[in-house]
Structure formats: C-alpha cells, structure tokens
C-alpha cells in the first residue's frame, strides 16, 4: 500500500499546469453520449531516483534494500542544528537532463521547503524546488509529436512507511513503522504539459523518457523497484473543446504497460461519471495491478497547504558556463540517434531498433553480443558450405524474441541474465557454422538461460552437434544409394513427382542413419550431386 499523497512527493504543478488552475468543475455532457465524443488529456509527472553514491544533502549512502535506518544521519533525520550541503553530482545530473530534453537552465535556481506533517519526512518538510527550478521549458519528440516538458526540479525522496494492523492498509492500521534510508535520496521530478492525447502516446513518452534517462546515465530507471515512478494526470473533455476537464492523479503505476491500462481505466471511469450527469472529483487515485482499477485514496488531500518558502539553509545553485559546457561535451548518444545508427549498421527494422531501446539494458546487451560475434574470428574458418554467416540481425532476432520473452516472464534485467552477450554470439556462431540448427539453438538457448552453461558446452553435453563433414555425409549417402539400387534406378527413370518422392526417401534414410544430426543443407547438396551421377 502506498500511503497518500505526501509520501510519493510531488511538487504541485499548479503554477504551470492550466488544468489545475483553470479547470471547470464540470463538463457539459452532450446528448450523443458516446465515448468517442470525448478527448483524453494526459500529463505525466515522473520521479526519477538519481544514481548517486550518496543522498541529496548528506553523505549517507544511497542504496536500495539495506537494513532499515542504517543509512541515516543528523541531516536526513532532521536533527536540530544539522545543515544540508548539496551533492554536486546531482547538479551535474540535472544539467544532463537539461541538455537531453532541450530545457532552458535559468541562471539561478533555489530550493524551497514544502511543509507538511507526515511521518515519511522526519523534518516535517520536504526540501524541493518550487518557483525557481533548475530546468524549465523542455521537450521530447515522440513518434513525430512534440511533448512539452514544463520543468524538471531537484528534490529529496521520502522515507518508507509500513502500516501495521488492519491488513496493512493505512486507513485501518493500528500504527506505522518508518525506515528513513530512502529519506533524502536525490530525485528529479520531470513534469510534462497536458499534451498527451492517448494511452499509447503516454506509454511512448514514458518509454522514450526512460530510454533517454538510461542513456545519459542518471538513473537505473527501474519502474518495478520505484527508481522511476510515473504518475498520470488524466482528464477528459468534449471533443472540440479546448478547456480542461477536472483531472485525477493516478499513482502506483509500476510498468509502462500498467501506465496504459491505468489511463484507459481512468478515461472510461471519468466518461461514465460525466455521462451519468456526475462530476469528476479532483483527487489522487491508486492503481491496483491485480483488479485493473484505480481507487480513490480517500485522503484529505485538498486540506494540504504546503506553504512553500525558500530554504534558508541552502544557497542558490547557479550553473556556470563551464559546468554546462562540460556536461554538453560529455553528452552520450541519445535514443533517437542510437536507433538510427543501429538500423543503418545492422540492417534491422525501425521496429526492431525501437524494441531494443524500449527495455532498459537491452540495446547494450545486443551491442555487446554483436561485438562478441564480430570478434569470433574463427567463424569464417568454421563455416561450411550452405551456412550463412552470423549477422547482427541474427543477434537482434534472438534478443527481441526469445530473450525479451524470457525477461518478460522472469521480470529479470538484461544485465542479470545468466547468458552473457558473448555466449549469445557463440550460439549464433554455432548456427551459422551449421553445428546446430536454429530449432536446436532454441533448446540450447533455453538451457543456457536456465543454468548459465555456455552454448558450446550444452551442444557437447547433449551430443547435439550436426554432422556437416562432407566425407562422412558422403559415405553415408553412398551406402544408402548402394543398398537401394532399385530405388535409384526408379528415380532416374521417373517423372518429377516420382523423383521427388524417391529423393525424400533417400533423405529420410540418411537422416535415420545419422540419428537426425546430419546437416540438412549439406546432405541435400551431396544427394543431388550423387543422384545426378556427379558424385
């Protein structure tokens, strides 16, 4: 259970998001009453935990999964007299984000206190940024549509509360337990304009945002572990209207796929409410993955009054031209450029490239495997007649097929796979060399993913290797043709249909003699040569 609004901090985007300030209470409901008379309006607020060694304002370690309250100090516990000092790497990361999403970086940005009483922050305020964030007015192009990004600002994460009693639900709990290891972990909150018009577009935006954050190395962007949290502000309005409907904010979305489902659910729910003559209540809602619905948090969110004021314990941040130039000079390749490069270099489709970039770590994995494949210099020496060379496309087919399927099933990440990229290259090499067939390779891959053995080892252990050696295969065919001289005569005298049938018979006999491990391409060619009397 995620506690109500304050525990997943988000500075309200009221100053910049028209849906909050100008929203009418109700929407006129027309007479046609069909869902297609409505337009969906979505803005996304994304919180990203930054991949630093330490917290935002103190030297406590920023680590996931440690023993509770072991990464705490006077600063992140808010003890009297403790003074925060800003982590310089957080500023650098924020500037990278500024560069990657084409933000303006104002000459000065300041921190502010967001005041609220909730035990996830021991200080009774969260240090965030309010009217002078570090990044303003950026954008991200998604499938040819430009989504404006209002702002990105630095703030600290909150502690983790566990509710005890009442089935662990906050409303019925007897008391709560708090772990402050996460309190003070650096976050960037990245807020889009309500420019998004479909759940597909929302997914594409979130996915491209994630790939970009991954590329610039500021976060490990794991939605399942909460290091990237996407909250969806959803409203609907009459098609053709340019006002905004009352929005809800949906939290607890743990994957890109869930984001799409949650938005679709909210859209349908709001339309139903409005068509029944009701009003959408502005509130925070909680996505439940199991029942596929959003639920009202029933917190008194409207009662919050954060009374932001400039944080007196921190001086302003004023990124210097040198800081910005250093960040600009070190910018890595961004996803759009990387997709273009892979399409051109590997002769793969846009769709394949997009799939590689759509899962964190997958493109890195594929690139490592392709490098390993290119390093397999023995490949050419191994290649026998009829075998095509292993290509980057073969790698990509495995990665986007079997391997992506395995990751989906297990919830694992590419970096954690027991099949190293070099092992995948080895597998592609084995198929290319004709040692095993593609079907056999599927089994080998399954075993390698399960127990981490190298593909070549699995081929040996299971005795899978195809026989491709010409003289062995040739003598097997010679034996079969000699033992079936009548059939050979019938073949030579027969019409096409008869020849085809006899040929199938010889092939079957040869495979039987080879226990199914003859290389079919080599066998076919040798059989043709010998039947036509050339062998």
């Amino acid at each position, binding site marked *: 259970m995620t506690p109500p609004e304050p525990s997943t901090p988000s500075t309200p985007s009221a100053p910049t998001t028209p849906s909050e300030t100008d929203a009418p209470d109700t929407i006129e409901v027309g007479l046609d009453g069909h869902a297609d008379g409505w337009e969906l309006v979505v803005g996304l607020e994304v919180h990203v935990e930054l991949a630093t060694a330490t917290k935002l304002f103190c030297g406590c370690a920023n680590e996931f999964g440690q023993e509770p309250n072991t990464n705490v100090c006077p600063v992140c516990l808010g003890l009297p007299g403790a003074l925060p000092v800003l982590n310089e790497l957080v500023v650098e990361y924020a500037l990278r984000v500024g560069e990657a999403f084409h933000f303006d970086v104002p000459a000065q940005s300041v921190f502010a206190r967001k005041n609220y009483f909730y035990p996830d922050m021991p200080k009774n305020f969260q240090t965030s940024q309010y009217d002078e964030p570090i990044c303003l007015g950026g954008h991200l192009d998604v499938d040819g549509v430009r989504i404006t990004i209002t702002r990105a600002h630095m703030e600290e994460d909150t502690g983790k509360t566990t509710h005890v009693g009442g089935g662990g639900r906050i409303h019925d709990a007897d008391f709560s337990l*708090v772990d402050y290891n996460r309190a003070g972990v650096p976050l960037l909150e990245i807020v889009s304009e309500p420019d998004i018009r479909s759940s597909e577009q929302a997914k594409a935006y979130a996915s491209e945002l994630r790939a970009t954050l991954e590329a610039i190395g500021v976060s490990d962007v794991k939605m399942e572990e909460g290091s990237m949290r996407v909250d969806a502000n959803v409203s609907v309005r009459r098609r053709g209207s340019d006002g905004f409907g009352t929005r809800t904010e949906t939290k607890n979305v743990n994957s890109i796929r869930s984001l799409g489902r949650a938005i679709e659910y909210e859209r349908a729910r709001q339309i139903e409410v409005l068509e029944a003559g009701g009003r959408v209540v502005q509130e925070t809602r909680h996505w439940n993955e199991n029942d596929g619905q959003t639920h009202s948090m029933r917190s008194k969110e409207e009662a919050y009054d954060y009374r932001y004021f*400039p944080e007196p314990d921190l001086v302003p941040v004023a990124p210097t031209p040198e800081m910005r130039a250093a960040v600009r000079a070190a910018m890595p390749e961004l996803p759009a450029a990387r997709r273009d490069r892979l399409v051109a270099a590997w002769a793969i489709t846009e769709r394949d490239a997009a799939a590689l970039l759509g899962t964190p770590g997958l493109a890195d994995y594929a690139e490592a495997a392709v490098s390993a494949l290119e390093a397999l210099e023995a490949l050419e020496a191994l290649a026998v007649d009829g075998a095509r060379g292993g290509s980057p496309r073969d790698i990509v087919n495995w990665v986007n097929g079997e391997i992506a399927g395995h990751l989906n099933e297990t919830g694992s990440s590419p970096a954690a796979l027991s099949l190293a990229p070099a092992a995948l290259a080895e597998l592609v090499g084995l198929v290319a060399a004709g040692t095993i067939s593609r079907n056999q390779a599927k089994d080998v891959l399954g075993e390698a993913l399960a127990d981490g053995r190298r593909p070549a080892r699995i081929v040996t252990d299971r005795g899978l290797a195809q026989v491709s050696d010409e003289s062995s295969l040739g003598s097997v065919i010679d034996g079969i043709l000699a033992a079936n001289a009548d059939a050979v005569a019938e073949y030579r005298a027969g019409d096409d249909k008869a020849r085809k049938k006899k040929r199938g018979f010889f092939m079957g006999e040869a495979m039987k003699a080879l226990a199914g491990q003859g290389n079919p391409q080599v066998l076919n060619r040798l059989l043709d040569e010998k039947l036509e009397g050339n062998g």
Partner: protein
Amino acid sequence: MSELTREQVRHVAKLARLDLSDDELDRFTGQLAGILDHAARVSALDTDGVPPTAHPFPMVNVLRPDVVKPSLDRDEVLACAPDARDGRFRVPRILEDEA
C-alpha cells in the same frame, strides 16, 4: 491595520499543529497582525528592478563531492525515538478517521 481574523490564525495554527487556547488566539492574532502590517509596509516599496533575495549571503554553488560518509549507529538513533520496533521508528496511526 491588517484585517487578519481569528479564524485565519486558527487555520495557520492548525497547519502548524499548534493547539491554541482562546486567550492565545486573541493574543497571537494581535501580534501576527502587527507583523503583517510591517510586511505590508515593505511590500509597498517600489522594488521594480530589484532581484528577489533567495538567501542573505552573496554565495552560490556550495557543493560537496558525492562521497559516502559513515551513517549513525541505528541503536543510538532509535534510542532517541519515543518508540521503535523492528529497527524502525514506530509512529501513531497516520490517517485520522474521516469526520
């Protein structure tokens, strides 16, 4: 004179989790009104072209390197808390009943 009302002071006190008696409400309403009057006089000055002050010190970019320092001992930390359990701070139930 400021038009601060007792109700506004009561609201601010509630946001700050202060439980004020009627006498205190009267007293603080008068004191706060005086402070607001002073702020109103400052507000009335012409500050066009004067950049807002975020901090009294003329300093920017006070930064520290991203290097881990030792954290506190958990037992010592939790010993300062009114209540603890399982290595965590124990706090009263968070949501009040909807009234």
